[in-house]
């Protein structure tokens, strides 16, 4: 009975299912693994990439996709693109915001302020669906957290447009994408080489833009990431030191009991 302990069963079970899970994964093509600077325990965003990514969002994505939970001021906050105060003001001021009602009960427009939320391209969800051939362009505030695969998945979809394989017939306004769940997407490939001109002179290749905008969206979904990693490191160091001290105290206290035996 004792030669093989069933205690090992749960461990064997886990290994067994890891193997099963690995060999019978879904047929969906796995997203490309990108070595993001913000992954890992000490990950940080690439500031220049965030600023370029914002430019891609502003000049390409924002014509259809809203980002309603972000404010312009976030663009200048630590851990983000960290635009200067003046730049943030200028970015906000370039947007016309509807405000009101004023004392006469009239709505009016004014230049945006850093405290304003990002202006949505459509007045409501139905308008966005109607304008996009029945497909809803999802809000991008937490898009990276809302997709299995996260940043890798968003990047892969952006670079995953291909001609459909033989035998796959697509309706009008539907495009084939290698990485999209179900492979069909109603958004045409949004990026083309040179579609924008980066203000920092970086060459605007599809791959570069996809990486930059994904970095930007990853920050938008987790603006606290850098602070979280930093605080987490301190918390861990503190907890581990305290654990060692408590362990030593415990040994000392229990030595009174153990020595009796």
């Amino acid at each position, binding site marked *: *009975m004792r030669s093989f302990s*069933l*205690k090992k*069963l*749960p461990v064997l*079970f*886990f290994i067994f*299912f890891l193997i099963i899970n690995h060999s019978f994964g879904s047929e969906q093509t796995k997203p490309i693994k990108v070595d993001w600077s913000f992954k890992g*325990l000490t990950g940080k965003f690439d500031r220049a990439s965030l600023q370029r990514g914002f430019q891609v969002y502003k000049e390409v994505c924002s014509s259809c996709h809203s980002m*309603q*939970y*972000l404010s312009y001021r*976030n663009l200048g906050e630590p851990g983000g693109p960290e635009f200067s105060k003046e730049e943030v003001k200028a970015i906000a001021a370039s947007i016309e915001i509807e405000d009101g009602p004023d004392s006469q009960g009239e709505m009016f427009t004014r230049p945006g302020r850093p405290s304003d939320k990002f202006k949505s391209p459509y007045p409501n969800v139905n308008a966005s669906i109607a304008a996009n051939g029945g497909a809803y362009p*999802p*809000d991008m*505030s*937490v898009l990276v*957290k*809302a*997709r*299995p695969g*996260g940043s890798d998945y968003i990047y892969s979809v952006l670079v995953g447009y291909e001609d459909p394989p033989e035998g796959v017939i697509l309706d009008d306004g539907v495009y084939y994408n290698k990485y999209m769940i179900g492979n069909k997407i109603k958004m045409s490939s949004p990026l083309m080489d040179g579609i924008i001109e980066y203000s920092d002179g970086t060459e605007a290749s599809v791959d570069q833009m996809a990486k930059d905008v994904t970095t930007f969206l990853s920050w938008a*979904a987790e*603006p*606290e990431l850098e602070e*979280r*990693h930093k*605080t*987490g*490191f301190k*918390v*861990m160091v503190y*907890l*581990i030191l*305290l*654990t060692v001290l*408590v*362990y030593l*105290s*415990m040994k000392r*206290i*229990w030595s009174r*009991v153990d020595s*009796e*035996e």
Partner: protein
Amino acid sequence: MSDKEYQPKSKAGKWFNDRLPLLTLGAHLTDYPTPKNLNYWWTFGGILTFCLLTQIITGIVLAMHYVAHADLAFASVEHIMRDVNYGWLIRYIHSNGASMFFLAVYIHIFRSLFYGSYKSPREVIWIIGLLIYLLMMAAAFMGYVLPWGQMSFWGATVITNLFSAIPLVGDSITTWLWGAYSVDNPTLNRFFSLHYLIPFLILGLVVLHIWALHVPGNNNPVGIDIKKPSKDTVPFHPYITIKDTFALLMFMIIFAGFVFFSPNVLGHSDNYIPANPLVTPAHIVPEWYLLPFYAILRSVPDKLGGVILMFGAIFILFVLPWLDTSKVRSAVFRPIYRQFYWIFVVDVLLLGYMGAMPAEGIYLVLARVGTIYYFLHFLVVLPVVGLLEKTDPIPLSISEPVLSGGAKLSMAKKDNEKF
């Protein structure tokens, strides 16, 4: 016990204690004689108390910023994450805290199953514990609904729809639960109200749980009754408090690992999509801690049958003290039960895994096998093994070498260290 002889030293203390014997209670908790051979599996009671308090404190702060309205809930959670000072930290502690709470409670329950802590004279402790577990599941389920994401909405729809399986009155009950004709704003509102209430009910039950524990005292890895206080016991403070603190810190390191470095890994990405009654997610799955029961529910082709089995899987635990016929508590001295115990652990893990998979093909077959075995374990294995098993000799006390069980005891202790 020495409680009754306790007298505060100061005059003021005596004056107060004569009117409300809080100091006597404090002295009882400090001196409480505890078996000295408790291993680390016994530290989870303290860890669970920490979990409950963490959830209550973070929850109260979250409730200051959260808005329980179908149109505003999702946005208010994003407001917490982005605009509230350290809102992200409080919310991630709360959401991961739920998972850590369940991790701890499952270890606590399986410790009880291994060492027979549910047996006489501790049946009432066990039953109160199960009531706490039931309330925890209700609180966790309703809490998961509050962010009003896709999984919130559809999880709520699936679970509340279970009640419609009740014959005759099922549909009326479901409508009554919803406060509407589908999961909607009134549902969200009442779930928020109940989600705030339940933790305090749990807190009350925890007091009863500990009270009931302090009547017979702790079980221990050897599972024998011990004299209290004696050479076999140590006072709760400082021996158990320091050990519990050490274990709690280890637990907090894992907890913090999730909160700071992987805060969303235990959740479902669909819950960052706002609830949409018109779009059903491809797979509706509950949080990981409810998966075994979800697997049991889906393994029955009939809806009512599935619901009965799922609730049965929980309620059968309430009669466990009477299903287990063995007089010996600890599995250390039960060579046959010990084997079945580990098979049961694997069975629950298997059910959990199947609960996460689509209910089709081989997954469904395995889920059914797992479900049948789950009930066989309680209804057949436990009663029969208890009657037929030849248990190992049991020592008479923890510390003293005894006539027949001495050698075994040292083996048992080694066994425990490994465990």
